[in-house]
């Protein structure tokens, strides 16, 4: 994993939570309550563990509190059974796509590497995911298959949505987060309001 150097190492968006409206605060602080993520309601423990590793590679970040929230996002989305907004014709329903894809991932890994995905060496996991993304490996075994591009895109999109909704990541990238009721007064080029991330140390 490469070393990352955030521009705002000391910025913590949660310092401002008292200034957010109660509904937003409730939504955002829940993302930090890792104990509330378990037990999973839709995923099996093994599916959750597999998604954890997979997302760690897709996002290049294995920090546990954040990744745990990403996996929880999958679990709660699938459990809620809300619509998919759109699904390409011929592609399985989201819940089947994700679940069958995870099962096939293990089968293909076992055939090729003699191990389920989570038991493989990290370097092998990374190489394997790269091959999946580039479409060099399919997800088919024993007469079953899953459209690999759709599968990996679905997982990446949901993982990205959850990851960039986590306050620790907001802090890291210098995003000032929720902004009601106070809004922004100094919005023009070069100006910052006092609670925003600043490179000179805040």
């Amino acid at each position, binding site marked *: 994993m490469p070393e990352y150097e955030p521009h705002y190492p000391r910025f913590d968006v949660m310092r401002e939570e008292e200034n957010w*409206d109660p509904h937003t605060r409730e939504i955002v602080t829940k993302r930090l309550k890792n104990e509330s993520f378990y037990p999973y309601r839709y995923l099996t423990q093994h599916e959750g563990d597999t998604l954890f590793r997979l997302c760690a590679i897709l*996002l290049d970040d294995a920090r546990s509190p954040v990744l745990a929230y990403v996996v929880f996002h999958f679990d709660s989305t699938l459990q809620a059974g809300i619509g998919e907004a*759109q699904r*390409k014709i011929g592609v399985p329903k989201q819940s089947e796509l994700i679940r069958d894809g995870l099962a096939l991932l293990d089968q293909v890994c076992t055939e090729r590497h003699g191990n389920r995905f989570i038991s493989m060496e990290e370097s092998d996991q990374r190489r394997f995911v790269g091959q999946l993304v580039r479409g060099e490996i399919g997800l088919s075994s024993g007469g079953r298959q899953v459209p690999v591009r759709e599968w990996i895109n679905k997982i990446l999109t949901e993982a990205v949505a959850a990851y960039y909704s986590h306050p620790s990541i907001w802090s890291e990238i210098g995003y000032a987060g929720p902004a009601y009721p106070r809004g922004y007064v100094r919005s*023009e080029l070069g100006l910052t309001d006092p609670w925003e991330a600043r490179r000179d140390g805040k």
Partner: protein
Amino acid sequence: MANSRDTVTHHAVHSQDHRHNDLNHRKYEDDADVCIVGAGAAGGVLAYELSKSGLKVVIIEAGPFWNPQTDFASDELSMTRLGWQDTRLVSGNDPLQLGHNNSGKGVGGGTTHFTGVFLRFHESDFRTRSEDGVGEDWPIRYEDLAPYYDKIEKDIAVSGPKHFPWGSFHGPYPYPEREPLSANAEIFRIGCEKLGIRSVVAPLAINSAPFDGRPPCINRGFCNQGCLPNAKFSTLIHHIPKAIQHGAEVISDSMVTQIQTNEDGRVTGVTFVHEGKTYKQKARIVILANFVVETPRLLLHSANARFPDGLANSSGWVGKAIMPHSSNDVYGIFPEEIRLYKGTPVLATTQDFYETDSTRGFARGYTLHAHGSRPVEMAKSISKGAKLWGSDLRKAMLDYNFYGRITLVGEVLPDPANRVTLAEEKDEYDMPLAHVSFSYGENDKRLINHAVAKMNEIIQAAGGIPAFVTDDTAHLMGGCRMGNDPQTSVTNGYGQTHDIPNLFVAGASLFVTSGGGNPTNTVMALAARTADYIVEQSKRQEL
């Protein structure tokens, strides 16, 4: 999903003196003059205008009656629920992204989470066939809509520049232009100026000063997540409450599943489902204002022995020629912080490329906007199709604050092959899912290439380096187009269906062409014109 803590949201029937959470106390169960399906941009305007004229109006809305204070949040992920999340099947060479991207659900429809950019169409938009040999002419002209654009802009106090250089309307707008701008809007204007491109502060359906008991915008940037302070117009906070004051009844959380007709071939009302139970609403006139995908779906699904191909579909044009806008984004990286999260997302605009220019190799044109973004939207769009992932994605997003962004709103020509049909698969109401097919045409692609090159130039001229181009679409129009010829269109120039005189269509589905600018001013102007027509016709007992 209804919010159990809230007294507004968890009720289903909303009228002047009453809110009920059951459907046993309806105001006009058997004697409504008008039933409007969908409480979005068009539905809201119609509900207000028709109830003001004294008609008994019932509005049936599939989603909740949101309470901004308790239902909205300054958060991208949780507010995707303002979109129509129910699954639609998509196909074609360029399958559309639906949901929060273009379809709203709940009172206010798309206006609860729209960006508030409020533009008029140009004269040429209504005459693309005559002027450029592409698309189709509308049955109405710009002049027919001009008084309604004036009216709508005044009704909601659109803010905008003193002088608007393009099209037929040159300002001033009812309210002064917004200030201060965001850094992203400033660099856009700097880039444009260096290249000799004219730009303005965008006309917006957002308060630049207090209006109608609502405060000015506080530049928090979350317009697409619903405006908490109510500074941005939506029909949820403007037209619908006023319609209720004028006697209209809103039935929320209720999905219309069927339109009823009688042996004379006239519409008698609709069937809807609330919490698993089916109800009927009778009405003398039914208006479908339920947007580009659901309006055709409902018409097709309401087929019966007399109308075997669906209602109002003798032309076969129901569902045909839907159009998004091409909406590619260019992200450029700058040496200084831009902070795309700050300020109303769109604050600066150019329409210098709007009209056809034969030297460019394509017909029609486009609008460009300086366009802010929050992290989820940016990360999702640059990672789309796994173009960027792993360490490349993470590195790019660590520089989030250093990116600026420009977005295209490009005209897409109508093509009957781009259409809504019914799929085999059914939903919870036993209605077939909508199948939405879309592919860009050659002209559309050339327009996009031209616009992307321009966006790159503007970013460079402003001192940035173009970094990511993402393909995207915005808005949806068409699917029940208006026209003079009943063989090639679904409604007349007022939205009245050719086949059934007491069945109307309102909203974005009426569009004949997409135009090259954001559509909602036109959606609402058309709705206000339809309202006048219905009031006139009702007076003369012709409906």
